[in-house]
């Protein structure tokens, strides 16, 4: 039963709220990630730890973690605590964002072919421009 010191209370769960506990937890993980309080690779307390610390049913906690995993925000690690996923892991969101620039890329590729530019030369230019931006 000795599990070391209790984890810090990083969540605020209100069982009496009209918002189910799993939704409260999902919203808070999302917010903590968006604000940078939980960085990629940060460990999440286990389902058991959260359920015990807040005296709430573990089913609703594991439901939250499962849905966050489906979203790509957290990842399950064999035999280790769940962690916040690397940002690029959010494949679906990445694909969606790439689709937004696809038309511009198409015209860029067309122009590059007409000018006999190699892909590597074009990519080098894009990288240079993007570094200037930031």
């Amino acid at each position, binding site marked *: 039963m000795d599990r070391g010191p209790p984890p810090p209370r990083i969540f605020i769960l209100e*069982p*009496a709220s009209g918002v189910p506990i*799993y939704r409260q937890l999902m919203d808070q993980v999302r917010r903590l990630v968006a604000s940078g309080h939980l960085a990629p690779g940060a460990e999440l307390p286990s389902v058991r730890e959260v359920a015990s610390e807040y*005296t*709430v*049913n573990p089913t*609703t906690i594991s439901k939250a973690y499962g849905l966050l995993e489906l979203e790509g925000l957290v990842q399950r690690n064999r035999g280790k605590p769940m962690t916040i996923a690397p940002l690029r892991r959010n494949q679906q969101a990445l694909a969606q964002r790439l689709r937004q620039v696809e038309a511009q890329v198409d015209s860029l590729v067309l122009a590059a072919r007409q000018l006999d530019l190699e892909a590597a030369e074009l990519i080098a230019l894009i990288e240079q421009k993007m570094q200037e931006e930031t």
Partner: protein
Amino acid sequence: MMDSGNAGGAPANNPSVKGPSVDGSAANGSPVISLRDVGKVIGGKTILSDISVDIEPGSIVGLLGKNGAGKTSLIDVMLGFSPPSSGSSRVFGENSFELPAAAKRRIGFVPQQDELLDSLTGAQQLALNAALHPAWDQALIARLIGEWEVPLDRRIQVLSGGERQKLATLLALGHEPDLLVLDEPASSLDPVARRQFLRELLDIAESPTRTVLFSTHIVSDLERVASKVWIIRDGRLAWAGDLDTLKESVVRVTLLARDAWPSQLDIDGVISRRDEGRRVQLVLTGWREERQREMAERWGAEVSVERLGLEEIFLELHS
């Protein structure tokens, strides 16, 4: 039991019945308790009607109802203390009213009125129960005696209500039952003891084969630890399903229109309606996120949605 059973409730959202498990035991997926069309009539008075519901292993079910709604009668029928007037009740796949001894040994029950022996001390009562159960977990009991501060050296007749309740609960936990049923378990406990007790319920149900059902009118306890909630009203189940789903399903919607509202709104699942001029407030069941936009477009109204805690949902179902 004061209520008659003919008032209609919101449709119960019965969990689906899973098939029997491969090895034939009730431990792996098949319901621990299965009620089908259960009715109970005592002295011409309907106490329970049309109750069909299952409990899956590993769940914590909170049974919620007003005084006299039928909570204790339902537990009596489930555990076979009295036969249903109609329908069937099964525990571990066996007829509740003819439970074999082996099935009874897998049940722990704490009645609303404890059955402690007043002339014994707590220690003597515990020793008596331990002797009756071959699989008594003395280490668990010793731990809980310490954590819950259960007095052992005084006669039971001088114990407080809360102390009696703790002792009675210990007696039901010692043989590590697969099914633990508690009728108003925490009613006499102070907040600290209640929290410790709730932790213990969570520990028990952590095992996927162990199941807890407790009746209560303390909504906040139920909201913490129950995964399923049954709301019983006038002897009928007004809701049986996930607590999370209940909270997502029942919401208060406020519609603000340019003009007055017609007296008949063609909306499904209205539990209650309040009108204040151009503003109409509805409590709805069967809510889905899309309905907010649908309603706004249909009536050209401003639609705001408020989520309700279990206490408010309970009150709305009884309004």
